């Protein structure tokens, strides 16, 4: 493994920095760390990490500013680390261009899953082959993008136009959280009212069609207050 992916951990708390760094190194990543915003910005431009893990609460600057300034020149995946109950912050960070988030406290497996999916989406974007992706599979759910066909255990599921579009977007970015606003803009256009009720009713209908038990979803997980996430094969 000569070209290990390099992960920058921006976190002011030393114990958490150590824990993340240790568990990522143990899982085959190379890690570098920064304990404040200034140091982080320097390290991002000099080391060019493959993924950035960013704690929003930094001593010297607002984490949002780091997202903004990085996005001016780079599309490197940024995963925000934030606390429970800060849903509006998460949405704001995602709107500014962060790729995903994990909520403190998180387990190693969750963190690794986020990093894997962020890396994969970045790789796909670099190869610009998202459009060529022919199909998607997660558990018993399969989507054939060419035929616009969704099947569960081989049986065709009849989705409306909008329902199919929602499922298609989520599966295109499987493993990554998509905010309500993003999905609504993609499907109903940029001038839709700020109300996400219509999306959620559509989602309830989709779940009734693809999930065995809509109250215990396997494929599309709700991130309360933020949006939806399609689960990946390996999760």
């Amino acid at each position, binding site marked *: 493994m000569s070209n290990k992916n390099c992960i920058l951990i921006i976190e002011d708390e030393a114990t958490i920095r150590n824990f993340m760094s240790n568990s990522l190194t143990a899982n085959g990543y190379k890690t570098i760390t920064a304990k404040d915003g200034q140091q982080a910005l320097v390290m991002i431009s000099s080391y060019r990490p493959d993924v950035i893990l960013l704690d929003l609460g930094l001593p010297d600057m607002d984490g949002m500013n780091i997202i903004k300034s990085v996005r001016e020149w780079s599309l490197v995946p940024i995963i925000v680390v934030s606390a429970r109950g800060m849903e509006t912050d998460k949405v704001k960070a995602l709107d500014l261009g962060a790729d995903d988030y994990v909520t403190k406290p998180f387990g190693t497996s969750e963190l690794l899953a986020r990093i894997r999916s962020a890396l994969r989406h970045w790789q796909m974007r670099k190869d610009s082959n998202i459009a060529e992706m022919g199909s998607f599979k997660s558990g018993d759910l399969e989507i054939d993008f060419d035929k616009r066909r969704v099947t569960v255990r081989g049986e065709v599921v009849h989705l409306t136009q909008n329902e199919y579009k929602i499922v298609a977007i989520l599966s295109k970015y499987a493993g990554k959280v998509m905010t309500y606003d993003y999905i609504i803009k993609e499907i109903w256009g940029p001038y839709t009212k700020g109300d996400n009720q219509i999306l959620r009713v559509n989602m309830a209908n989709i779940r009734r069609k693809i999930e065995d038990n809509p*109250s215990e979803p396997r494929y599309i997980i709700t991130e309360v207050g933020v949006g939806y996430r399609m689960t990946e094969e390996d999760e």
Partner: protein
Amino acid sequence: MKNSSTAKKQLTLSPKDIFITGYIFFAAFYLCVVLSLVDEGSSYVSMVFLLAVFLISRLTEGYFYGIAASVAGVFGVNYFFTFPYMQFNFSMPGYPLTFVTMLIVSVATSTITSQLKKSEQVKAEAEKEKMRGNLLRSVSHDIRTPLTAIIGSSETLLDNPDTEESKKRELIAGINSDASWLLRMVENLLSITRLESGGASLELRTEIIEEVVGAAVVKFRKWHQNSPLRVEGSNELLMADMDAVLIEQVLLNFLDNAARHSKGATDIELKVEKKGDMAVFSVCDNGCGISKQDMPYLFSGTRPGKADSDRSLGIGLSVCRTIIKAHGGRVFAGNRPEGGACFMFMLPLTEVEYE
């Protein structure tokens, strides 16, 4: 800071108090006019106005309105109801007495009124302080036990690097379980402080119930991978106005409770039903049920004389009650006739029209 804010209150005129003052004053004036039609004398006039001044001082905030009313009353009586009518005459005998009496009545009443209000406030404040103290005491006690275990276990690991592998794992598993218990405690405390800092922090939105249930179940599965949980939602699409993060917390507390305390449970069922215009959420198990001693204290957060190993009864359920109450719903707990415990709460449903 408190003093300056009350002083400010006395200086700024509140529309409500102005209205009360004006209304009572006008009523007194009108009464005197009516009385003067039937009675030639004028002895009742000062009595009526004295009563008006008393009422105004009692019903308004601070001294201002009472004093203003007594001054206006003295001049009004003099001008309208004493001879010579429609002009001032300050040379009447006993006049200063009327003035001073009204002034004293107004000041005395206002003082008593504001003292009364203040003592009520102090009482409520003391009650709140007591509750907070109780909570703090029980929390600090609850927190100390797992912390002691964590510190002890980690020190053992640090000091004895050649501990047996199986022993090591045991200690680490203990640290992990105590730490996650502490985490849940902190999440509960956060929810409570969010509610106590005023009802405004309840972020009510119309939510689809199965989404919130689903999110809670996904989280629960992360902690208890082998739990025998079954989830049964309603076929109908149910919506309710709620703070999703807090309701998720309630569901997690119920589920966690069932997973930890129902000894011997082989089945835990989370169910959502529609009953009338309410959504009923229930978590039932077939375990050991709720003991008689615990029953009265379930939602209060403390049980007198409980053992340390019992601590996890903790504040979780009292947090649930606080959250559900703030939503205008109700919580219940009981044992099932066929064995096992049931915890439920109800929330009012919201009707939403959609195309």
